[in-house]
């Protein structure tokens, strides 16, 4: 225990390898947080309003393409949508990153413990949308919930909502489909998580949880979080931007690229015959196809948006998207550590049915 050299007190909380410009930017932001935030927001708004005309200008003037051609419209679509989605993502992920510092898994568990089942389902689904969660944490989180006496069904409400409703999916839906569809996705996703969890609770499936889970004593779970300062919360927001936007941008580019090609080259109404409203079998097919597919929302939503432009029905598209995001094979394999196959099958069947229902409902209503 002998510190050779006391590390120089560095103003930045980020790692030193991230470059000096970032360090100085961070220290500046820490000294004048509000003015800097104001300036950044103004820059953001300016950029956001520039990209549409800029994408037209780049396509027609720089590249000399007409917007009436297949190539021209595909290029303009790409040049407009990629920066738009990335800008929206940066802003929202930053805000959500700050909100999430208030909802650690340990705190979420504390909020859920001792709640009656129905209220617990609703609360768990809502907390699932804001609690930081990655599928590799699903098992420790599951054990933490169950050993704290949170009912199995309530735990499932959380586990269904957490991957299905996340800021990346909502931002992409908002950016590419409009806020109405994003809201629709949020509400139906929450409903599925609440109802599916409630049903699982009613079915009394505790015996299909691996026995060793219940053998773990309910240790006073450690919560490392000393109350954070606002500086640390804002830093967490930046970290989230670096981590999440840094990870999904290639998917956004590829997804929108494929979407742009579909927009430009696939004939109108091409999808209507097999993903349209009239094909009753298209919803179950979309769900079945979605389960083994594993990509994040950033990759799938732009493609799905393009398909809708070619005559695919909203309900079908929504069902496909939910199946891809919420029912992923890798997560089931991870959950197999704590759940017996029977319970995983029931989980998939119930959530799948919920998604089917949503698909048919929207094809019927809209």
């Amino acid at each position, binding site marked *: 225990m002998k510190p050779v*050299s006391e590390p120089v007190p560095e103003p930045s909380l980020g790692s030193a390898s991230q470059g000096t410009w970032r360090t100085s930017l961070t220290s500046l932001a820490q000294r004048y947080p509000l003015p800097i935030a104001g300036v950044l927001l103004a820059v953001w708004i300016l950029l956001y309003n520039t990209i549409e005309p800029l994408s037209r200008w780049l396509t027609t003037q720089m590249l000399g393409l007409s917007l009436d051609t297949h190539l021209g419209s595909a290029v303009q679509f790409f040049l407009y949508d990629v920066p738009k989605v990335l800008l929206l993502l940066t802003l929202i992920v930053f805000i959500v990153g700050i909100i999430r510092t208030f909802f650690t898994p340990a705190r979420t568990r504390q909020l859920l413990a001792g709640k009656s089942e129905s209220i617990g389902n609703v609360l768990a689904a809502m907390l699932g949308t804001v609690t*930081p969660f990655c599928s590799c944490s699903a*098992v420790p989180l599951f054990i933490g919930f169950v050993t704290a006496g949170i009912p199995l069904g309530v735990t499932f409400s959380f586990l269904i909502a957490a991957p299905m409703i996340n800021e990346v999916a909502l931002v992409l839906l908002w950016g590419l489909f409009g806020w109405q569809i994003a809201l629709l996705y949020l509400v139906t996703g929450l409903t599925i998580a609440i109802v599916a969890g409630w049903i699982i609770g009613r079915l009394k499936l505790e015996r299909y949880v691996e026995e060793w889970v219940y053998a773990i004593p309910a240790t006073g779970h*450690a*919560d490392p979080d000393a109350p954070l300062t606002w500086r640390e919360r804002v830093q967490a927001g930046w970290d989230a931007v670096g981590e999440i936007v840094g990870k999904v941008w290639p998917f956004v580019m590829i997804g929108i690229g494929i979407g742009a090609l579909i927009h430009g080259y696939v004939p109108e109404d091409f999808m209507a015959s097999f993903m349209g409203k009239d094909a009753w079998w298209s919803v179950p097919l979309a769900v079945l196809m979605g389960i083994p597919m594993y990509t994040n929302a950033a990759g799938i939503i732009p493609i799905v948006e393009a398909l809708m432009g070619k005559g695919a029905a909203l309900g079908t598209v929504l069902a496909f998207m939910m199946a891809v995001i919420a029912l992923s094979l890798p997560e089931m394999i991870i959950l197999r550590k704590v759940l017996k196959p029977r319970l995983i099958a029931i989980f998939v069947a119930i959530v799948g049915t919920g998604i089917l229902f949503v698909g048919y409902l929207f094809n019927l209503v809209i």
Partner: protein
Amino acid sequence: MKTITVYGPGCARCKQTEEVVRKAIAASGVEAEVVKVTEYQEIAMAGVMATPAIAVDGQLKIAGKVPSVADVQKLLS
């Protein structure tokens, strides 16, 4: 001598965390031993609900995120 425990089932973020910890130890010159816990059962027993997580001498310090080298250095000093 400190003991740094890294909890994580072996996902990419957990491996990243281990690297960060080793870098921080090397950079600070503190004598420390790194223990990796990958078994779900053990992770749960330690009260960890979000991985990757780091404990110093048995005390949970960071959970659910990949820390920066500077963060870990602070824990070591």
